[in-house]
């Protein structure tokens, strides 16, 4: 009687997450959602390129009430207006909520869950793929915008804030992604909830005096921005008057806590929840 070879040991949580990561990265990068990602991150690059061309022809690209705005200030405004207020939260919502929800919707989650990999590792692996995918699109876009707008002579003076921008954008993507990964794992219609959170709750909470802002991600991300907030309307004026910036180390600690806690909770949710596929 021949003996059957022993079955290989199932991969550890980390190994499982890495396998899902390498599988999901290509899938995520070449999906239709990436077209949206490229459009969203390409718009600031395009605007910066236009500004550079206009500047090259001797015309001041941006004036605020007749005042010429220099390249470094335009870059600061773009970080606020495009990246912090729109791109980072929106990518967090779209990608974060879809990590599990897409698999459920496409009815492919069964194939993932029948693998000898812990369910939580599936979510963590997909989250890491999201993080690499978005940071490697968003951050190069910021680099291009920076070098298109800021003259070489000002690079030394502005480099530290530029590096801080890159760091906090990556941190923002990580925090929003983890939060919405939990939303995607726990709720039935995660995209709607995510959009309501980003464009409803966060916007209102930042304007209300008191402690509400502490229950937003934007409060901690925006508190670390090295650029002055653009005064582009009543909302910005109110935000600047009411702002109560916590110290940087507090922001870092809170964001780290959000990432770890929500990711851990999301992994636990995926481990325990029964996903019922629509017939």
């Amino acid at each position, binding site marked *: 009687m021949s003996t059957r070879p022993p079955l290989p040991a199932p991969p550890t949580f980390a190994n499982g997450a890495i396998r899902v990561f390498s599988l999901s990265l290509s899938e995520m990068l*070449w999906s239709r959602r990436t077209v949206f990602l490229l459009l969203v991150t390409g718009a600031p690059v395009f605007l910066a390129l236009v500004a550079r061309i206009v500047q090259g022809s001797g015309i001041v690209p941006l004036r605020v*009430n*007749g*005042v010429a705005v220099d390249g470094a200030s335009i870059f600061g405004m773009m970080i606020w207006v495009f990246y912090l207020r729109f791109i980072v939260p929106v990518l967090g919502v779209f990608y974060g909520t879809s990590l599990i929800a897409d698999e459920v919707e496409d009815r492919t989650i069964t194939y993932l869950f029948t693998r000898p990999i812990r369910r939580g590792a599936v979510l963590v692996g997909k989250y890491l793929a999201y993080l690499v995918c978005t940071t490697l699109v968003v951050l190069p876009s910021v680099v291009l915008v920076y070098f298109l707008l800021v003259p070489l002579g000002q690079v030394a003076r502005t480099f530290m804030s530029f590096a801080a921008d890159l760091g906090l954008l990556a941190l923002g993507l990580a925090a929003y992604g983890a939060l919405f990964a939990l939303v995607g794992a726990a709720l039935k219609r995660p995209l709607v909830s995510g959009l309501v959170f980003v464009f409803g709750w966060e916007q209102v909470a930042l304007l209300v005096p008191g402690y509400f802002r502490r229950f937003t991600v934007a409060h901690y991300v925006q508190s670390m921005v090295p650029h*002055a907030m653009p005064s582009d309307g009543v909302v910005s*004026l109110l935000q600047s008057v009411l702002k109560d910036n916590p110290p940087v180390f507090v922001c870092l600690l809170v964001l780290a806590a959000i990432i770890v806690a929500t990711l851990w909770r999301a992994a636990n949710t995926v481990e325990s929840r029964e996903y019922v596929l629509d017939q």
Partner: protein
Amino acid sequence: MTKRTRLFLTVSGGILVAGLGTGLVAAYVGGFQNLTLIGASGPNELAYVPSDARVVAYANVREIMDSELHQKLQSLHQSRNGDGLARFEAETGVDVTRDVDYVVAVLGGEGTVSGEHQGPPLVMARGRFDEVRVEGLVRSKGGVAEDYKGQRLFTYKDAAPDRNVTGVALTFLEPGLVAMGVDSAVRAAIDVRTGATASVTANEDLMRRVKEANADGNAWVVAKFDALVNGGKVPSDMLQRLPAINWVSVTGHVNGGVRAAMRAETRDETAAQNLRDVLQGILGLAKLQTGQRADLAAIVNSIELGGEGKNVSLAFAVPIEAIDQLANLAAARAAREPSVDAPAAPEAEPVPAP
């Protein structure tokens, strides 16, 4: 991982690494502004300014005089300023509106933070001057000519003993370049010219700011902040409340209107953030206060607060229309005020006693 995914990761990572690497190199070598390809570093006359200068100011008189704003102001105040300029021209042969191209003013480094005086001032003007006529004027006022290191120097000391003036001097450093100021400052400029002492162009800290200011406007001031507040002109209480500021630069561009920017470099990022917060608050209040005043709202709304790290900047613009409005407002106010020559109101008739 597919081949095109690897390619994408390589290109994205490459852009990121190249950007960060370029920035790091720039930060390490102190920027690329020293490359000769990138613009001039300020007026050539800085080559005569000693390296310890703490305040440097520049005004492109030619551009300002030719500006639409000056034409407008001249039409408003012709009678007030015309006499002074005409008298100056009659004495020196210099028509300021035509003969002066630009002016560089400097405060030297002898003043101390707690001292009673600022460093000696020096003014250099580039233009077209009748040297013989200027020399004659100086002599007629009691000036004395002397030779200082091969340079003809005119000095003048006030005879009044109570004025405590150390003496002023004037020299032509080059044809078309007159330098005047406190005697020691003019002699220091000659020392720099002869190479006895270093010029301010070797002062990288100051020159970096001068270059930035020079690119921004046709009139500017770059100063060490303590040099500006020397001499007890700023109350000590106020000084203690001010954030720790190292450098201040003010640039202005005068053309159809005026656009100006003030930049401050603080000692650390906390001080900069404090200063930004204070200015942001003041700006918010100003916007609320001027909401009903269309003439002032245009100016206040143009104020833009910015800056990052240790830098704080405040920019604003006064368009020509706003200047027109302000001039009209001033004219209307002047018309409303009773004239000195106006006859007094007649006294009331005394009421007869009942």
